[in-house]
């Protein structure tokens, strides 16, 4: 029984080609790897190698034949010890380059007759987050900066696999003093100063996570993580999926995000929308010190890669934080930080403060605003937003980043999809002006959204514009 040699495809899109030249003739012995023919497409000329060994029993397609279909039999090999003429005789005489005869041992892959609808029920991938446990114990007034440090220290005490790496995190005690004291307590093995080489250390951190450690990678600011975004997305976020679940990347990428003060466009960008675009990542951006601590502890314990977006301008703000080293806040759960009835305002990170300020101003104007601190951007807690919108029938989204393809755009879409009938006004977005952030104090102030803009938006959606 002869071995059929089929017309190969040179690319996923090739359907036919020209058999340009035979480099063997009938009766020639061939072995694996021998070049037996050249074929051409409109794009390329390629050599065909023999995979099996034997004697060329019959060439089925003449040199120069055009339009030879992929998988058509182009030659027959007689196997070792087989009579070449017998093998050739098995081939029906005068066979044209018909595709795939009955004797062809391997049929081309079957295309499904029609696309099978994907099972809808299987879509829920992320577990539903439970609200954080009620805390009725003692509270300690803590800055966001200290809360972040405490979260890291507690988790490092609990788990030797947890370590911190980044620029100036050790001996300098943190560029923004977030890691103050950690080197003293945990030593240079676990608190590691890196050179200024974000792509490299993000890759080293991710590799260490794949090997079973629990790295916390600090970026001096997230602006510099653009140098490392390939590892955050292609290596950390996608490898679990690409490995069919075999390789885990339990890593936290953290650091200040968004505008600071008077540092101009390259140092003043919000990346929440960027990272929230990517399945496989979780994206967290807290406001209060309690949430910063509780969420960072959850992020360190999470088996998935987490992008943890902080804000330099609120590092020094003080909040009450539960006095416990095991109290955590679940990722994926928003929090209603102010109850209201007339309009819902969503915000995260520094914008929560501005939203609360706006709510006070609105109250003085007779408008009751409900403020939701999103806390997690991915997975987004749509349910908490919907519940509020069903009550207030109006929504303003606030974020410090640009509006286009922003977090507010996503929220507005979800509310339109899932609560359209509850809306009494179009959703309003408050975001940065659509320009790179300027340096000049007056222009910077003009570009960034504040409480006034939120108030205006709230009055617009409540049809109470002055």
């Amino acid at each position, binding site marked *: 029984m002869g071995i059929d040699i089929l017309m190969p*495809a040179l690319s*996923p899109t090739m359907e036919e080609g020209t058999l340009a030249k035979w480099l063997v003739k009938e009766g020639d012995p061939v072995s694996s790897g021998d070049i037996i023919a050249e074929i051409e497409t409109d794009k390329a000329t390629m050599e065909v190698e023999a995979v099996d060994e034997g004697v060329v029993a019959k060439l089925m397609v003449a040199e120069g034949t055009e339009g030879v279909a992929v998988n058509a039999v182009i030659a027959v090999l007689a196997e070792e010890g087989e009579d070449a003429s017998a093998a050739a005789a098995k081939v029906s005489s005068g066979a044209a380059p018909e595709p795939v005869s009955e004797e062809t041992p391997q049929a081309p892959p079957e295309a499904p007759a029609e696309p099978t609808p994907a099972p809808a029920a299987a879509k829920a991938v992320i577990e539903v987050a439970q609200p954080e446990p009620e805390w009725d114990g003692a509270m300690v007034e803590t800055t966001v900066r200290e809360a972040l440090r405490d979260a890291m220290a507690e988790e490092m005490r609990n788990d030797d696999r947890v370590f911190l790496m980044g620029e100036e995190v050790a001996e300098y005690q943190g560029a923004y003093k977030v890691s103050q004291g950690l080197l003293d307590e945990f030593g240079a093995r676990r608190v590691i100063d890196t050179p200024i080489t974000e792509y490299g250390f993000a*890759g080293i951190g991710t*590799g260490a996570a794949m090997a079973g*450690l629990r790295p916390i990678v600090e970026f001096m600011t997230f602006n510099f993580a653009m140098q490392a975004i390939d590892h955050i997305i292609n290596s950390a976020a996608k490898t679990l999926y*690409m490995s069919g*679940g075999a390789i885990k990347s339990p890593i936290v990428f953290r650091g200040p995000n968004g505008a600071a003060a008077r540092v101009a466009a390259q140092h003043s960008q919000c990346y929440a929308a960027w990272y929230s675009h990517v399945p*496989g990542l979780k994206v967290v951006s807290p406001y209060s010190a309690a949430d910063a601590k509780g969420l960072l502890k959850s992020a360190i314990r999470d088996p998935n890669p987490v992008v943890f977006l902080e804000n330099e301008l609120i590092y020094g703000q003080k909040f009450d934080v539960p006095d416990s080293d095991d109290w955590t806040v679940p990722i994926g759960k928003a929090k209603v930080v102010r109850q209201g009835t007339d309009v819902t305002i969503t915000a995260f990170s520094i914008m929560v403060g501005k939203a609360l300020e706006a709510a006070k101003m609105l109250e003085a104007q007779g408008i009751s605003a409900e403020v939701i601190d999103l806390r997690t951007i991915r997975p987004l807690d749509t349910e908490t937003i919907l519940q509020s919108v069903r009550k207030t029938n109006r929504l303003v989204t606030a974020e410090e980043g640009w509006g286009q393809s922003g977090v507010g755009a996503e929220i507005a879409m979800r509310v339109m999809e899932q609560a359209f009938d509850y809306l009494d006004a179009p959703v309003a977005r408050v975001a940065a002006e659509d320009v790179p952030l300027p340096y000049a104090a007056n222009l910077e102030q003009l570009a960034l959204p504040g409480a006034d803009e939120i108030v205006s938006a709230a009055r617009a959606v409540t049809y109470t514009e002055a």
Partner: protein
Amino acid sequence: MSTTARKSAKRASNKQFDDAQLTKFYEDMLLIRRFEEKAGQLYGMGLIGGFCHLYIGQEAVVVGIQHELETGKDSVITGYRDHGHMLATGMDPDGVMAELTGREGGYSKGKGGSMHMFSTEKRFFGGHGIVAAQVALGGGLAFAHKYNDDGGIAVAYYGDGAANQGQVAETMNMASLWQLPILFVCENNRYAMGTSNERAAAVTDYAARGKPYGIPGARVDGMDVEAMATEAAKAVKHVRSGKGPFVLEAMTYRYRGHSMSDPAKYRTKEEVQKYRTEQDPIERLREKLLERGLIDEAGLKAIDKDVKAIVAKSADFAQASPEPALEELYTDVYLTA
């Protein structure tokens, strides 16, 4: 360049390998060769899609290095031309071939494809599609070995093209600074896709790329498995003993195009033919085995037959294994805590 590069490769006397080791080299290289030929054939039949980068010609590199590693203790990571590395670390050919055909029985359940397979058991960490990403990730594997003080080392394989990426330099710097146990293996097959070394690098001495960071390096004839294993043994010893990283540049050659759809117009047929006939690592070892009387034609034939059977079985498995269930679309995106 072909001959000058080869001449400058180390010509030190080889380590002595016993009969069984030499025969094993032959078997391992032949398995990769035949496996890749079969993959090429299945690609031609439309059973493998997308990108498919074959390792034919470079077999001696990975076989020589892997021989000096402790599988399951040491970590291995590579780029997208990775089928040979998987086979050399002892991964199951059935699972590798089934991943190529995108089937449920593949190492990544059909969700990764040619460039993305992993084995925690063998400590094989992929299979990465972004050129040079595996070098920084490999630095992380080495970091973990040092952090855990477990005696293992990491080997990061990359090509001459990847050598020019900034993150390779970044990783070398940190690996040396922190004395990480990592062996950098630059597989110099002379072309980064269609761009030759000379057209891509101001200085093509990739073994010396560690020098600015205090990392020693050596060049070795990557078409000679005994030379490969000899130099690998020295390099691995250096790294394992805590002396920090080492760069090994293997001078090799790929016979096929960069990927299946590459007509390889950037080099002459004569050049390819010269390597095939004069340098082929499998043929060279075969001749040595016969010369030294370690095996006869019948013995070689028996090996050939066994290897073919393994490859044929993998091809059958890769076609018989079903496509992944539709529910698999949504799995492995997140782990639950």
